[in-house]
């Protein structure tokens, strides 16, 4: 009886250890797997050609990612520019000014925003933002736009990354010791001066980490972007132009990718590229956040 229990314990321990090791290797498996699949295209094209060429004609085996990368950068850029001020002001309000009950009410609502599926964001974008841009914003600037544009993608993505940026910023603000705030207040600083000169300055690395986390989420978001940016494979020159971000390219062409030679390789290379960019951002952010966590303990 006793030995059976110990044996069970040992076996379970080994099994758990195995699962732990395997699951912490998933990231590497992804990178290696995608690299393996994209080798055929890397064998015949140079990386700089792929990244800088603007011609995308899979049937002529021309795979230039440049318009898609630029599409991604434009859309992500617009999203982050919209999201930064709104999120930071909200986070400061919730952490420093809002009464407790307000905070307790608002937090679940922000969580809810994070739970809405991206396809629903896409539907909303098509129903609200696209017509808004087509009928009001573009005419206001005296130009024409179909509404399916960088701006539409940017607005929808901004809302999608609100919860991430707010959530992480709140954690960062909470990690700042009260003594520092009190020291500043006791020197005669107003609450806002304390926030501006002490809290925000102290929280800066964490705030930047929060923003980068939002940025990388926006960079990899697929479905909503696919639905509202118009998917025209041309480098956008204004926020009212359509764009074709990298994730949308991958999602949109899964159907025909196995029937054209090297097409699947090209798309999976795009995937690898996406993964590496996001991994880089995430690793940097996590290192910063871990250091903040250590510092506060």
């Amino acid at each position: 009886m006793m030995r059976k229990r110990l044996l069970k314990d040992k076996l379970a321990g080994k099994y758990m250890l195995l699962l732990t090791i395997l699951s912490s290797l998933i990231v590497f498996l992804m990178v290696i797997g995608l690299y393996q699949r994209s080798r055929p295209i890397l064998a015949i094209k140079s990386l700089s050609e792929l990244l800088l060429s603007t011609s995308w004609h899979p049937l002529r085996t021309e795979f230039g990612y440049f318009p898609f990368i630029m599409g991604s950068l434009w859309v992500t850029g617009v999203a982050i520019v919209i999201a930064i001020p709104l999120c930071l002001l909200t986070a400061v309000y919730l952490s420093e000014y809002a009464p407790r009950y307000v905070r307790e009410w608002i937090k679940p609502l922000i969580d809810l925003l994070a739970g809405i599926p991206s396809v629903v964001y896409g539907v909303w974008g098509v129903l609200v933002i696209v017509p808004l841009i087509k009928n009001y914003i573009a005419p206001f600037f005296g130009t024409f736009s179909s509404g399916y544009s960088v701006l539409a993608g940017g607005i929808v993505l901004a809302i999608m990354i609100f919860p991430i940026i707010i959530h992480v910023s709140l954690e960062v603000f909470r990690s700042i010791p009260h003594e520092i705030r009190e020291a500043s207040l006791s020197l005669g600083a107003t609450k806002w001066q304390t926030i501006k000169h002490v809290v925000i300055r102290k929280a800066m690395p964490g705030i930047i980490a929060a923003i980068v986390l939002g940025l990388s989420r926006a960079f990899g978001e697929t479905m909503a972007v696919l639905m509202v940016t118009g998917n025209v494979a041309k480098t956008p020159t204004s926020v009212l132009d359509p764009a074709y971000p990298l994730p949308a390219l991958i999602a949109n062409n899964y159907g025909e990718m196995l029937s054209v030679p090297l097409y699947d390789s090209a798309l999976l290379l795009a995937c690898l590229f996406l993964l590496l960019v996001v991994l880089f951002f995430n690793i940097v952010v996590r290192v910063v956040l871990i250091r903040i966590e250590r510092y506060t303990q």
Partner: protein
Amino acid sequence: MDKRKIEEGLFKGLMIASTIVILSSLLFILGTVIVKGMPAMNLAMITQTPKGGFYLGKEGGILNAIIGSIYLATGATFLAILIGLPVVLYLNVYAKKGSRLVTFTRFSFDVLWGVPSIVYGAFGFMIMLFFGLRASLLGGIIAVSLLILPIMSRAMDEVIRMVPKELLEASYALGATKLETALKVVVRQAFPGILTAVLIAFGRGIGDAASVIFTAGFSDFIPYSLFRPAATLPLAIFFQLGTPFPEVQDRAYASAFILTIIILIISIASRILTRKFTRHRVK
């Protein structure tokens, strides 16, 4: 002195305004989906599979996608629990505190959390090619379970970390093995949190489209085996919205309404469950 007050007032106003903007964007999205989706709802939508010419505006419903999504999310959640729970228990009960493996695993889950779902889709697709699988319910389950694994594990880890160490020690002192302690003390103590983590993961799984687009395929029929392609709600919304027919687009709104309702139910349920179970917790 006055200037300082004015500046503070100004920024406070801006802060409240941005909070309102963010909250109203949530209400705006939910409102739009309800206003557009409700009128297009009918009983056939949730009780019938697509009939011939459904995507041209003929009759039928999206029962195939509703059932497909539920199958897929349930399967993926189950698979993710099978992998995630042992890992989290290992990190918190078996492993030495602060060991390299623990730090590394937590770090890699944090990083995995940030990987876009389309990449999981492509990775799942590669696994399928490797095993010679075609687009199927099983393929979708694999991709989605990978996607929700870090989400679920991180959430579980957070609550299991909070279980007081004294409780574990009391259990060891009574002669329990680590396995018994993990299953009978730690899991029970952290149960509400684990349930919430599972529900969050389920909600994410049912709503994700980019990871199933490669892997689960699409079908007008309810899948009767793991090796059949399965329709999913998000893709059904996407395809219906992509048609040029207003009647079909209306159905996309109705489908989005159904999906949103499912998500709302899950999120409310997790809140109620958490509240109900925390009463019995040892603090």
